[in-house]
């Protein structure tokens, strides 16, 4: 079938594709025009075209800034720890939910687990300081009641990491189960029944049927997560962090906010953004390549 005939026959499908394509063009490709700010001495009164080219001057400045390396280190550290802690959490939760026999209890648990996902980080930040505060926080009041000393959950950088991770799991684990639960519905029930007949216990069934059934999903999510290794949301570190733990809580996104939005150095902010995008791309391609080699599963 020639291309024109093909297009003519299925034109409706292509027409439907127009909207998503337009979305990507307008919101994802259009803004790339602004990347040139990284190579210009951007003055927002003159606009992008009116600003002078400065070559790689801004890159030199960024790579000479101590804060840049600290925030880069923190970004990788927080994301790396998140990958260890927050990535497996929804997986375990999904498997547990899947094993539940009582439908109403399953539905109820799911709903309760989803709720934190819909709470804004600003509010979570407030809750966290009420719960984990040293002086009047709930947890510390309880610990003090037991006769132990206070624990500086928010003010000591090591304890703060713990708080940061726990809050992250609480906020995102429930929501993260959705995609796994969806994948689990695709597993043939007969496999479980057959395994049960063959005498496989519950753990054996999980290990040999459920987990392999989830493998493609796990790998896809892992690749996506690795792609985000270098980019970090602004709201979580900004709202959970505080002055005392800036050494760990200051990340690339808060750095960009400070030099870009607060100090008006848009060129520097753009350089950091571009750097993140390029490194992120390398991570995604690398993870994809590794996964293809090791497991034959990949998304590209």
């Amino acid at each position, binding site marked *: 079938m020639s291309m024109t005939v093909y297009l003519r026959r299925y034109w409706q499908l292509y027409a439907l594709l127009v909207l998503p394509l337009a979305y990507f063009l307008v919101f994802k490709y259009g803004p790339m025009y602004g990347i040139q700010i990284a190579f210009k001495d951007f003055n*927002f009164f003159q606009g992008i075209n009116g600003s002078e080219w400065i070559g790689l001057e801004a890159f030199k400045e960024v790579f000479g800034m101590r804060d840049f390396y600290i925030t880069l280190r923190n970004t990788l550290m927080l994301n790396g720890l998140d990958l260890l802690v927050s990535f497996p959490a929804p997986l375990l939760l999904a498997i547990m939910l899947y094993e539940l026999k009582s439908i109403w209890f399953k539905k109820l648990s799911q709903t309760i687990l989803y709720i934190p996902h819909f709470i804004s980080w600003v509010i979570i930040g407030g809750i966290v300081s009420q719960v984990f505060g040293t*002086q009047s926080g709930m947890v510390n009041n309880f610990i003090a009641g037991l006769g132990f000393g206070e624990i500086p959950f*928010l*003010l000591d950088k090591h304890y703060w990491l713990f708080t940061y991770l726990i809050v992250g799991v609480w906020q995102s684990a429930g929501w993260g189960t959705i995609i796994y639960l969806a994948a689990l519905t695709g597993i043939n029930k007969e496999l479980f029944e057959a395994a049960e007949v063959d005498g496989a216990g519950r753990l054996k069934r999980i290990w040999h049927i459920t987990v392999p059934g989830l493998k493609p999903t796990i790998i896809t999510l892992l690749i996506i997560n690795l792609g985000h290794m270098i980019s970090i949301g602004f709201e979580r570190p900004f709202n959970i962090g505080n002055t*005392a733990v800036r050494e760990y809580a200051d990340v690339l996104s808060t750095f960009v906010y400070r030099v870009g939005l*607060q100090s*008006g150095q848009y060129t520097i902010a753009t350089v950091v953004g571009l750097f993140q995008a390029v490194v992120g791309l390398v991570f995604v391609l690398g993870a994809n390549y590794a996964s293809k080699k090791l497991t034959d599963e990949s998304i590209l």
Partner: protein
Amino acid sequence: MGRKMFGKKMASTLLAALTAIGFLAGCSGNGGKDAATGTSGNGGSSAGAAKEAVTLKVEVFERGNSPAGMSVTNNYLTKFVQDHFGKPNNINVEYVPVPRSEEVEKLNVLMASGGDVPDIVFTYDQNVFYRYAQQGGLTDLTELLDQQGTNLKKFLGEDTLAYGKFEGKQFAIPAKRANLGKYASAIRQDWLDKLGLPVPKTTEELYNTLKAFKEKDPGGTGGKVIPLGMTIAPAQIDPLVWSFIQPTTDEQKFTLTQRLGSNDYPILLPGFKDALQFMNKLYNEGLMSKDFGLDKDKKQLYQDVSNGKVGFLSEDDTNLYDDGNKISSTLEQNVPGANLKPVDVYTNSEGKHAKPRYAPNGMYIMIPKSSERAAEAIKYLDWMAIPDNLFHMQNGVEGENYTLNENGVPVAPANVTEETKNRLYNSGDMAIISNGQQLGSDDKNREATVQAMSPKYQDKARESLKISNSDTFPPVLLSKPIEAQTKYGTTLQDKYFEIIVKTTMVKPDKFESTYESMMKDYMASGGQAILDERTALYKESK
């Protein structure tokens, strides 16, 4: 086949529907625009003028404190402006709300957007003003002010106007500040009485008092006592830190002070380290708020003071007594017999209660270069500078909002209703050319502030104002902007507070090493650049 046909039909119907929705949206968008121009046209003709009314867009702070039924863009004062300034001049004054807590961020975005930026914008941050001026984003107001700003010039005077100059040109209109005092302290007199202690007179005596508060817990807080209420806001940190700064020569003061944002910080001045050491001691002995590093907006502090846990604190002059924060009144409700009394305690090596005061200007009012309404903007500010207009915007209607007492100070009538009071709820943000009341003398201006408090706290407020205005020193006057301050100000301000928090909270044996490494980081992140530039400027001006 039939099924396929049906699918095809479905798809085309869907597409048609989508297209229709798109068209509808487009139409309604246009319709909205037409309607808007229509009304503004009508407004113009009803005012009886031949030419169409122009729109003047003015920034206004949004603090989220509007009474029911009002907003910062629509209230008694916006109507007053429209009726008395807008209508006669055929101008529609439109207010553009900007959140107070992120004014600089929002302003940067507005400025970058070009067309949407209001015709009148402002900021308290001097470095932001310099940055805009330097990048050529502001209208030069020198001539306009001569032509249309007679009242404004008279009101502000040359001294204030000088703060708005950049490279000899008037790029900003600085607001005039009535009350230059910043900080006062307060102590729980009832605790002192209970323990039979005198009011501490020096920082040394204060330390002993704080210890007594901690050990004897006169408030019966059950071990929850916070002898010194602390936050990471300037009002709690500044008075303590500055009292440790040694007597300095003019040269030291000029070169070693660093202005970050709108404040002078003594980070390199002799004595700064001693201040940190003192804070470290207080913290490690449990004499200070444990979570002060989390308390940026003073909310926790206010809560602790109101709950009767705090023994002593420093604060922005009258904040502890005004009706807005309701700190003293809540405290007295929670702890009957509590008495939070203004005192002046922190003392430097010369025996003075040295504390910083404000420059004689308030915020920097600017007109972006892209604005086509610069003339109208100056006209608006000039109108506001006419004494009667300013007085009305600050005090409301005579006989309803205020009556003049024998000294000519406006006093609220006893039976003033909430509704009448609410007319002026954001008058400070509307009367932008003046920070505080301008009644002709410092005493009168202060008395006006006092009269705005509820009668019960007027004496204490008066005392606080006296304290905040004694032994003060002005910010360093710079003959030209320090570029490094403009560039690194925000970053270094964050680092400054980080230094304070970290060196305060660290165990005493780690103090030295923490201080060294953090100062090194501070200097490398721009502190050195500021120091070099200030030193050069000092030599130049010699």
